[in-house]
């Protein structure tokens, strides 16, 4: 069954980005889909600018640490505290800066695919310098060649530390890194043996990073003897193992399947996945080409795929902000929302990333999702409180001026916060200026929702502010955004 051109283009904008921004409705229905695809890829071609929010003092400390180590000196208590506190602030700033990119950047596809890789290469670290280096590696390579992305992530200080490869030594191999590279980054579970992991771990011995996050190869700790991995033998090093994993067609299958579930449909279509994966493999793992294949396929626009995916919390927040342009004066409230909804950037639940799909939804998260648009509109108070995150608190609760800190923390966590947003409604209502009054509701509905709305007109009418055309458009939009249908794209 064919879908309207408008829906088709919106589908593309939701999947290849964070939803439509303020585009006049008639434009989306008249624009050619092919042209839009081209424009989306073109916009994401440029290498993105490095996001650097780390405190210069921290960077200086990290850069000096190798030297301190040589001199057998340690950080002073004051330096330690500086690193801890500013690093945490830095990660919050990185979160909000990247979120703003998702909302405002023209490079919608790049940021969206980066968000996918951010979950694929899930990594927690309290080190802001490492964290922003990893994010940069992901954003730069997001649409490039998968082998380059894999190699750069695998050699990042963030990942090597997170997966304990700094402790992977000739005499005491640590298998964590080798295991996750196979299980989560390339082959997927069931496509290698425990022996493969043991042997690969030996090949990764000596891979580590210095304090400023750069890759170092510690020759003395590397096991140079012969290893046997996935049926191949040799005096492999870590790069050789990554090559073997890349050459394995299962890697293309595994990545493609995950991409399909994230960008097309949670319900897999084997034929389509196989077709994509074969081309991905044969084309040398060109990520951009894989997405070209997806977005230009007729089946991508099948009714069954449109409106079938539950928006992730970050996509939901970014999507609302793109649709109705706003200034948020207390930006941190967005981090609280991310936490309450179950997806805080840079804090994946574990190394396997966010499971997504129906896992985003439980009673509390759904009710909060439904209330967000209304909270923005009415500046309603957010009375919910996310759980403590012990990884971030790190024993700072009981230091000296505890009470004051706790208060600051509670505020940061959003206890009793409102979403202080100033919405630019004029820009939004203008989008509908050519639509006649009687066609207004269907027009708003089809631009706000990706799935046909089951909320009846009579229900909506009761809650729509009819006092002026502007108020009608505003209230209808908020209303439609507060429905289960809006959770889908």
């Amino acid at each position, binding site marked *: 069954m064919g879908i309207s051109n408008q829906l088709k283009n919106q589908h593309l904008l939701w999947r290849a980005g964070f939803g439509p921004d303020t585009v006049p409705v008639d434009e989306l229905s008249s624009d050619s889909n092919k042209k839009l695809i081209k424009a989306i890829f073109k916009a994401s071609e440029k290498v993105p600018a490095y996001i650097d929010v780390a405190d210069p003092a921290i960077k200086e400390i990290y850069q000096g640490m190798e030297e301190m180590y040589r001199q057998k000196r340690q950080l002073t208590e004051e330096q330690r505290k500086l690193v801890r506190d500013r690093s945490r602030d830095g990660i919050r700033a990185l979160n909000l800066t990247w979120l703003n990119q998702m909302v405002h950047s023209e490079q919608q596809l790049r940021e969206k695919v980066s968000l996918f890789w951010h979950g694929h290469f899930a990594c927690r670290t309290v080190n802001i310098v490492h964290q922003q280096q990893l994010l940069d590696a992901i954003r730069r390579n997001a649409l490039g060649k998968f082998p380059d992305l894999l190699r750069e992530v695998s050699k990042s200080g963030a990942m090597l530390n997170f997966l304990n490869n700094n402790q992977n030594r000739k005499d005491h191999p640590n298998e964590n890194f080798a295991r996750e590279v196979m299980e989560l980054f390339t082959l997927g579970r069931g496509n290698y043996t425990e022996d493969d992991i043991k042997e690969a771990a030996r090949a990764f011995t000596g891979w580590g990073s210095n304090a400023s996050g750069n890759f170092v190869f510690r020759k003395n700790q590397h096991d140079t003897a012969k290893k046997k991995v996935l049926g191949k033998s040799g005096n492999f090093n870590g790069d050789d193992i990554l090559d073997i994993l890349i050459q394995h067609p299962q890697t293309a299958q595994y990545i493609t399947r995950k991409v399909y579930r994230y960008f097309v449909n949670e319900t897999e279509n084997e034929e389509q996945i196989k077709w994509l994966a074969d081309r991905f493999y044969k084309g040398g793992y060109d990520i951009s080409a894989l997405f070209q294949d997806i977005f230009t396929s007729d089946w991508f626009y099948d009714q069954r795929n449109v409106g079938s995916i539950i928006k992730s919390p970050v996509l939901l927040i970014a999507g609302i902000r793109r649709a109705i342009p706003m200034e948020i004066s207390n930006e941190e409230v967005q981090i609280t929302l991310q936490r309450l909804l179950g997806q805080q950037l840079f804090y994946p639940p574990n190394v396997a990333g966010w499971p997504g799909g*129906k896992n985003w939804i439980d009673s509390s998260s759904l009710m909060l999702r439904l209330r967000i648009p209304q909270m923005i509109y009415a500046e309603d108070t957010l009375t919910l409180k996310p759980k403590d995150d012990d990884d971030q608190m*790190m024993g700072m609760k009981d230091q000296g001026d505890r009470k004051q800190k706790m208060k600051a923390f509670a505020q940061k966590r959003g206890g009793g916060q409102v979403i202080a947003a100033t919405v630019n409604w004029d820009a939004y209502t203008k989008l509908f200026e050519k639509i006649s009054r009687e066609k207004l509701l269907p027009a708003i509905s089809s631009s706000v929702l990706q799935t046909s709305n089951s909320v009846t007109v009579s229900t909506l009418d009761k809650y729509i502010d009819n006092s002026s055309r502007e108020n009608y458009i505003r209230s209808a939009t908020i209303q439609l955004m507060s429905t289960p249908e809006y959770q889908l794209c």
Partner: protein
Amino acid sequence: MLLKRKEFLQIGSLATASMMLPKFMKAFEAPHLVPPGNKVLVILQLSGGNDGLNTVIPVRNDIYYKVRPKLGIAPDNALRLTDDAALHPALTGMKELYDNGHLGILNNVGYPNPDRSHFRSMDIWHSASDSDKYVYTGWLGRYLDAQCKGCDKPTQALELDDMLSMAMKGEHIKGLAMKDPRRLFNTSNEKFFREVVKNHQDEHGEQTVDYLYKTMAETMSSADYIFKQSRIHPTSTVYPSTDIGNSLKTIASLIFSDINTKVYYLSLGSFDTHVGQDGQQRRLFTEMNAAISAFVKDMQQNNRFQDVMLMTFSEFGRRVAQNASGGTDHGTANNMFFVSGALKQKGLLNELPDLSNLKNGDLQYSVDFKNVYATLLNKWLGADDRQILGRELSYLDFV
């Protein structure tokens, strides 16, 4: 005009709320009376890694005092249980429970290849997975899946929180999180939401949107049900006005009603005491002690203590030696408390930790926590633990 804040928050009457539910939710509205002898499991999560060695103190162990010259709690200050063991001084009520045979203490609980990261280790405790596997469902969520297949009872497991823990998420059914029954009721029964749910027609339940509607309807229905139940037998016992006190008070009211809830979940923290452990742990224990004491008294006065099992756990214990900042760092094995009027074994259920046999400065576990889960699922909740935990595990004898 709905968009005026006041109106958003307007509450309809209880009767209207349930009348407006869609058909597929009607079955759920039938009363679910709890059979007599209904067993309830209350799980108290001590978040952040509680220091078990300063909880149950090995007062005659020289190693303990040697590696904790500042942090070690002197025998005279601790609440003596046996010649060898004593409780943290703030746990006076727990000591009383011990004396009355209502406290079981299981030492050295852990799992193979322990992970020292808070979130990963908590993940392992929540999912009951092996430490090298990633499972997205929680053990209590899978309990719901097993018990509630085909029945709409999302109130079987309640978490007293604004966010639902992974432990409570099943493949098909999830527990429900709420801090306060009234607040949940208020938000979920907003007029507009009620009408949206009422008018949703699709009953095939195959589309994702139907799943959302179903969750929404269940939440509203549950909110209504919980709110009503919590007001049937409001407890008259005085609880401390702390978070944990309020939560246990709500739980008590629900236990006294005929609600179908089998599992209650709540957290206390943070026990992540890298620095200044003494003050922080004492403060948290004081809160915990007062709240549990009130709760037990309440259960006893209402003749329900036999039906209640309260269990505490933490994602890991701390390292055996104190650190340079008057605290302890992330460790491994730990102890668990069981509070109930129906314990089959009481007091210290097994040996104290062997401080002379450490692994890299950490305790070695002797009981896998999954055996505790299996025991409670099978013997207390009467559930199929093998299906829920995906393996055959031996049971412990305290239940």
